């Protein structure tokens, strides 16, 4: 994102500066959110794979990773744990998606305001 004022004499007020700052902050937050959403989706996929494997296996005791070690845990307990982890992950993903929507909305608003005032003198697109 670059800012540039053209040959026109459009003055930059403190309010404009604050809007530009806010847009920059939102843009950064958007990138962070996109990364976090990617990680959350991967986690959910892994948990899905794990629970599918569980259904297929006929072992009674499963080695479940807790911290850095693999504890021997009975199959039912592992199933319950994985279900809980899936719940937590999907709630987390939902929250992240919601925040992303709100950020995108705010950025669209700010774009309207800033392009309205500065027209060509400002560039708010991804480079």
């Amino acid at each position, binding site marked *: 994102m*670059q*800012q*540039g*004022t*053209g*040959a026109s*004499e459009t*003055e*930059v*007020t*403190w309010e404009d*500066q*604050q809007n*530009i*700052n*806010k847009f*920059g*902050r939102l843009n*950064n937050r958007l990138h962070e959110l996109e990364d976090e959403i990617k990680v959350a989706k991967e986690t959910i996929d892994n948990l899905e794979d794990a629970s599918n494997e569980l259904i297929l296996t006929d072992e009674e005791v499963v*080695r479940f990773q*807790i*911290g*850095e*070690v*693999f*504890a*021997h845990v009975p199959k039912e307990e592992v199933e319950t744990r994985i279900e809980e982890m899936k719940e937590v992950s999907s709630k987390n993903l939902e929250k992240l998606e919601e925040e992303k929507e709100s950020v995108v909305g705010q950025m669209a608003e700010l774009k309207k305001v800033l392009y309205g005032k500065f027209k060509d003198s400002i560039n708010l697109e991804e480079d």
Partner: protein
Amino acid sequence: MAAAASSSSTESPKTTTERRGIPGAQFVEDVETYLSQTGLDVNSALGFLQERLQQYKLVEMKLLAQQRDLQAKIPDIEKCLDVVATLQAKKGTGEALIADFEVSEGIYSRARIEDNDSVCLWLGANVMLEYSCEEATSLLQKNLENAKASLEVLIADLQFLRDQVTITQVTIARVYNWDVHQRRIRQTATSSTAKDS
């Protein structure tokens, strides 16, 4: 809002003083006044602003590294809490916990963890202390909260810093454009006087 981080923001919202050692970027109302106030010509002003920008970038890299460290530390602490909680849960049942752990890369061994009341926590600097399960949980919990709080402060610092970077970039652009504008005016003035004479 980043302005809330500075105490002077209520009187003069245009200049945020420094925050934890990071100098605030002065917002320029009018380029001409700014240049006459600082007594700098355009090139020196641009040079000064560019230097400030470099300093900000350096601090940003440092803060980003700290943020990465903290973001790695937090899941670690959560994993430890998980293990202690599992041990505590097993305590009631009377059966031992069997776990496979890594002895060396790719080599695992089986351990049988009997019922016990204490765990040892690695505190860093080659120091390990034994704690009861409850003490361990509360210590780990406290560390986790401290780490999360530090991370929040760090993120706020980064936001403040990025705002100052943005303000400085905009000021550089405006000073440069003002200069271009001035040159154009001077050029049209000299060319019109040349035409007259």
